[in-house]
């Protein structure tokens, strides 16, 4: 298994140098280069503050203030024909400035255009729910809370959606280890059998490449099976597993390969 390296500051330092590879930036265009987008942007700018705007991969990206989100989406839905919220979630920039970036992907079926609305919030800050505008935000905001711990003010049912209600920790944070923290490792054992069962059941085996030929508690001794817990000393004889006892079974005929016929014709 790959050795575990702490990921607390994974974003703070570059783990590659320009010498080898620089990830290319997707080129950005000015919003003025597209008529429809430009008109939309002007309509939003007339009422709300837009801190940044550009077109990237044929989509308009705008940055707004966190407090304006409900108003901006309401304006886009009712006046600019962006009637669908296809997706929303957060991006973890905690290591780089203690911030979350929240994005809302809007789709207009009439204009055939997509706009991404974005803003930053501080760590621990809540966002305004847009569930009253778009029903799809109901589950998206719950998932955002589940995965990042960002609460949405005004949401009717602000609870976890994927993880169990009594889960601790937010799995999509960059600092959350992929194989889980201590709470995750013992979650099912603690819940079903209690903490005192930890010693009996034992820790999770996370090393997928581990093979221990002296281990008889697990099943990976194909062809050399022994009863569970047997002390394995050396070379156990090969254990031919047969699906039937040698002297046969009452009323059940044993399959004999010699008597069987292999049909070659696939169309039979």
């Amino acid at each position: 298994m790959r050795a575990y390296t702490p990921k607390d500051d994974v974003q703070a330092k570059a783990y590659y140098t320009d010498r080898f590879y620089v990830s290319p930036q997707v080129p950005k265009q000015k919003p003025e280069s597209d008529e429809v987008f430009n008109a939309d942007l002007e309509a939003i700018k007339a009422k709300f503050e837009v801190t940044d705007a550009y077109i990237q991969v044929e989509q308009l990206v705008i940055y707004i203030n966190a407090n304006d989100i409900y108003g901006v989406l309401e304006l886009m839905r009712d006046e600019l024909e962006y009637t669908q919220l296809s997706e929303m979630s957060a991006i973890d920039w905690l290591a780089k400035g203690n911030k979350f970036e929240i994005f809302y992907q809007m789709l207009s079926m009439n204009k055939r255009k997509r706009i991404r609305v974005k803003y930053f919030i501080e760590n621990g800050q809540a966002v305004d729910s847009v569930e009253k505008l778009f029903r799809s935000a109901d589950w998206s905001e719950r998932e955002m809370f589940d995965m990042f711990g960002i609460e949405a003010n005004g949401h009717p049912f602000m609870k976890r959606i994927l993880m169990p209600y009594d889960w601790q920790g937010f799995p999509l944070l960059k600092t959350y280890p992929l194989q889980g923290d201590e709470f995750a490792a013992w979650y099912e054992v603690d819940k079903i059998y209690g903490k005192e069962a930890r010693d009996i059941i034992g820790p999770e085996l996370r090393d997928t490449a581990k093979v221990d030929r002296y281990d008889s508690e697990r099943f990976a001794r194909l062809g050399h099976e022994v009863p569970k817990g047997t002390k394995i000393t050396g070379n156990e004889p090969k254990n031919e597993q047969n699906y039937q006892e040698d002297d046969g079974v009452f009323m059940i005929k044993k399959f004999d390969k010699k008597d069987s016929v292999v049909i070659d014709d696939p169309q039979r």
Partner: protein
Amino acid sequence: MAQHKVNYTQDGGLPVALTSIDKIVNWGRSNSIWALTYGLACCGIEMMASGASRYDFDRFGTIFRASPRQADVMIVAGTLTKKHAEFIKRLYDQMTEPKWVISMGSCANTGGMFNTYATVQGVDRIIPVDLYLPGCAPRPETLQYGVMLLQKKIRANEASRAQKAKRLM
């Protein structure tokens, strides 16, 4: 209606077969393994295929039941998430003794490729397992072979005594 003629002169003149309680009970048990419908992921598709006409589980007396109270064997077919772990324990406890568990596929055996925070790393952390089937996913033949091995295991037990309940701890 078919007319059966009993030959009272053969086998000492009696239409009787002698056997032991163990054998007759185990014969019945091993040939009527009712399985709990428990497809958790893609292995469930293979389990369904085993039950359908091409592979035809009914030949073995294996009929899928929708209730744990009617089932003898729990075929854990698929990935067990940590959220679902308490339910598998509850369903296992609801099954009547004697009961058996087949862990089907890599995910149920060890967590498989899901080496993550949300997956139980082997269903044997929750319930005792009688048979592990390797594969991702195992083919229906593997599952049927597994059921035949389970039948052999059932036949090897002493049925007359009160069977000791299997418990993880």
